């Protein structure tokens, strides 16, 4: 059966086809859809864990009990899961454990561009890398077979272009792998105290040797011999780009990027006059091939940064590219991503951006966009959970100078991911900061995933719901408040009071994501600007709300112009089709010029 599938859908399909029925992960672009799609198959169990470390530990537990477990995350998620990762490499997995890392070359939706192939080498684990959706589907099965055969966790690395490109998949009937779930007590294998870990350490090296031998004859490490002039060693999506631009070269396409098949690489290198390595990000293959004493050309020509495309490869190889069009001679205004019309974050950050001399430590989520003008209400973003620790550290470092001037903001899902321990630290070490949980009742940025405070699981079961206020109180936070970010006046008052009072505070800014219909089924009337009242002060434009535009009087016919103030040179306009009627602009308008559309 031929289906058009994204790489992520194909990974889920591949797991289903080989009988995997246990999955865990944490959402993160570009990995999110893998577990979402997997969870829809008949008879599987899948869960969103609060973070990637927990997801991996859940997967380890399931695998030790004999299950075939799938664990999914984005590249930076592996940093969070790194602690269990490096030791499960020693214990092995009993059942089977496959970890998907979805990397993001070009940082389409990430804070860094790390190359997670390095984790395979670092943690001494095998890593497969598919180049398109059908390979993704097939490689998942191979990964599970390898995991069971070598008693090792196996990485499957995707990138944004593999995960989010669609191509034709030849779906097969599911043929379950054998699985025996039972309690299995084996301390020598699973209790990693030094004495036993030292023994397992030796096993890890034995396993790597066996995997190197396996790699030599692994059919997905594939030679395509065309001519003896130039040979290209590549893997994953760059293989496709290279094939488009350089169809006549010989190829060694690696399906397994760690460990490498040294004999096969030597054989391939000997068959061509000049050898290239084409790989995005780090010279991961190149350095290892060079260490084999093989002469190779790689990063001298190809960039270290950003994802490739066929044009990058043609350019690097010095090929004449097709006559390209000169861009039109006009300044094209940029279109950066923006908070949606009616986004509840807008009210909060409008208030935070106007607080004088206050540092707002930010975090990962849609609200990170509030750093941009005109809101300019966020001043840092490092990683999931960093806001709270940073706010605490800043308050401690500044002492008296920082009193009443340090805020940390974090989303609901991000707080549950890695904000609880730093909040505990803030209370325990008596920091002075106001922490705001931007609680929009969902994991919005990645597309409305459930988390431990939404009341539902990934597979739709009703469940327990964390109470942020009660949690903060038991952790020892001095003051706990709740605000509605659609109410600007109260939001401003509460923020000022909490900043003034000293000690630690938690403010829950609660209002459902405007795109998430569970909590806000009612529709509000859109608003419009009454030109007979607007004085052109631009207060409403300060909200950076997409439907609100400035219309200059210049170039407009005289009969359309209504001047309500002396120096007025234009007025605001609201696009009623996209306005959600959140009323923030109505609240900032001093002359009452913003009205409901009748």
């Amino acid at each position: 059966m031929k289906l058009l599938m994204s790489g992520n859908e194909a990974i889920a399909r591949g797991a289903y086809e080989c009988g995997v029925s246990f999955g865990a992960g944490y959402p993160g672009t570009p990995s999110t859809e893998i577990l979402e799609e997997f969870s829809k198959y008949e008879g599987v169990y899948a869960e969103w864990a609060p973070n990637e470390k927990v997801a991996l530990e859940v997967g380890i537990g399931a695998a030790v009990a004999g299950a075939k477990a799938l664990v999914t995350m984005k590249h930076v998620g592996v940093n969070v899961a790194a602690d269990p990762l490096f030791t499960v490499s020693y214990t092995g997995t009993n059942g089977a454990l496959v970890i998907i890392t979805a990397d993001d070359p070009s940082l389409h939706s990430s804070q860094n561009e790390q190359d997670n192939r390095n984790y395979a080498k670092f943690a001494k684990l095998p890593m497969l890398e598919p180049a398109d959706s059908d390979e993704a589907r097939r490689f998942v099965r191979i990964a599970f077979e390898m995991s069971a055969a070598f008693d090792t966790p196996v990485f499957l690395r995707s990138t944004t272009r593999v995960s989010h490109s669609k191509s034709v998949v030849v779906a097969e009937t599911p043929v379950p792998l054998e699985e025996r779930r039972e309690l299995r007590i084996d301390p020598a294998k699973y209790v990693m105290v030094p004495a036993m870990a030292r023994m397992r350490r030796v096993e890890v090296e034995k396993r790597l040797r066996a995997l190197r031998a396996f790699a030599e004859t692994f059919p997905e490490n594939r030679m395509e011999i065309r001519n003896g002039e130039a040979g290209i060693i590549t893997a994953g999506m760059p293989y496709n780009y290279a094939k488009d631009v350089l169809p006549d070269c010989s190829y060694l396409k690696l399906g397994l990027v760690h460990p490498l098949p040294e004999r096969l690489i030597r054989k391939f290198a000997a068959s061509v006059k000049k050898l290239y390595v084409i790989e995005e990000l780090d010279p991961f293959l190149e350095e290892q091939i060079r260490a084999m004493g093989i002469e190779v050309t790689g990063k001298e020509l190809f960039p270290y940064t950003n994802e490739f495309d066929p044009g990058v490869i043609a350019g690097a190889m010095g090929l004449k590219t097709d006559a390209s069009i000169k861009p039109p001679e006009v300044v094209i205004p940029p279109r950066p991503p923006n908070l949606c019309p009616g986004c509840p974050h807008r009210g909060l950050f409008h208030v935070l951006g106007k607080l004088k001399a206050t540092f707002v430590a930010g975090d990962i989520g849609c609200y990170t966009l509030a750093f941009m003008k005109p809101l300019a209400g966020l001043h840092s973003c490092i990683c999931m959970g960093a806001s709270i620790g940073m706010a605490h550290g800043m308050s401690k470092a500044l002492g008296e100078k920082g009193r009443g001037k340090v805020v940390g903001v974090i989303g609901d899902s991000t707080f549950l991911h890695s904000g609880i321990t730093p909040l505990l630290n803030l209370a325990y070490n008596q920091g002075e900061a106001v922490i705001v949980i931007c609680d929009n009742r969902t994991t919005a940025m990645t597309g409305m995933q459930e988390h431990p405070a939404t009341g539902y699981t990934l597979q739709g079961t009703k469940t327990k719901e964390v109470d942020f206020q009660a949690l903060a109180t038991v952790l020892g936070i001095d003051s706990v408040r709740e605000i509605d970010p659609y109410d600007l006046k109260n939001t401003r008052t509460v923020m000022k009071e909490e900043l003034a009072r000293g000690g630690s505070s938690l403010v829950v800014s609660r209002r459902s994501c405007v795109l998430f219909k569970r909590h806000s089924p009612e529709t509000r009337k859109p608003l419009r600007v009454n030109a007979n009242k607007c004085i052109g002060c631009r207060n409403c434009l300060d909200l950076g709300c997409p439907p609100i535009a400035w219309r200059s009087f210049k170039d407009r016919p005289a009969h359309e112009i209504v001047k309500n103030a002396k120096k007025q040179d234009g007025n605001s306009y609201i696009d009623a089709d996209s306005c959600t009627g959140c009323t923030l602009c109505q609240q900032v308008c001093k002359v009452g010029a913003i009205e409901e559309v009748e």
Partner: protein
Amino acid sequence: MDRKDKQLRKDIAAGPARSVLLAGVGGQGILRASDILCRVIMEAGLDVKKSEVHGMAQRGGCVTSHVRYGQKVYSPIERKGNVDILLAFEKLEALRYLDYLKPSGRIIVNETEIYPPAVNLGTMPYPDNAVALIRQGFSTVKVIKARDLAAAAGNIRAENTVLLGALSPWLDFAPDLWERVLKESFPTRTLDANRQAFHLGRDYREGEGGG
């Protein structure tokens, strides 16, 4: 598959991969449209790949979807200067991606303006001569008011289907193939409006040809 389809398939298969670049703004239904396009191509018996970016970029930012098809397709993304057809859901986005086109490339541009933040704030102008600028470099430009046609079809959200309709005569796939894929792509509730939107787009002729 009738004889005409077989011939078309042979013609396409004989040449290099062809490409369509869909460009617009998050929320315009670009990904849905490119899904439908890919299914039509797949059902016509050709290899097809498409690529787009999700996540942060979708929050009101630019959205593009590359579609490449032929006998065998490797890269899901097309390089600059090599796109056959640009299907622009918004005028500014048409300008932004013009340099992806071949000199002989063709363009369909939706006569709609969605203001980016700098234009809303009044700090940058929205180019008032976008279509003229497009026509300067390209001889085949189809300008279409997809929103009006979608409204006429009874669903303003069917703008993307109108644009697919406008694209369809340039691709030569059999109308009944489009019909079948449309039927499988929409719930009964919105199928009629989308079907009509597609035909209004397909039959639209005004503004086509040299500039």
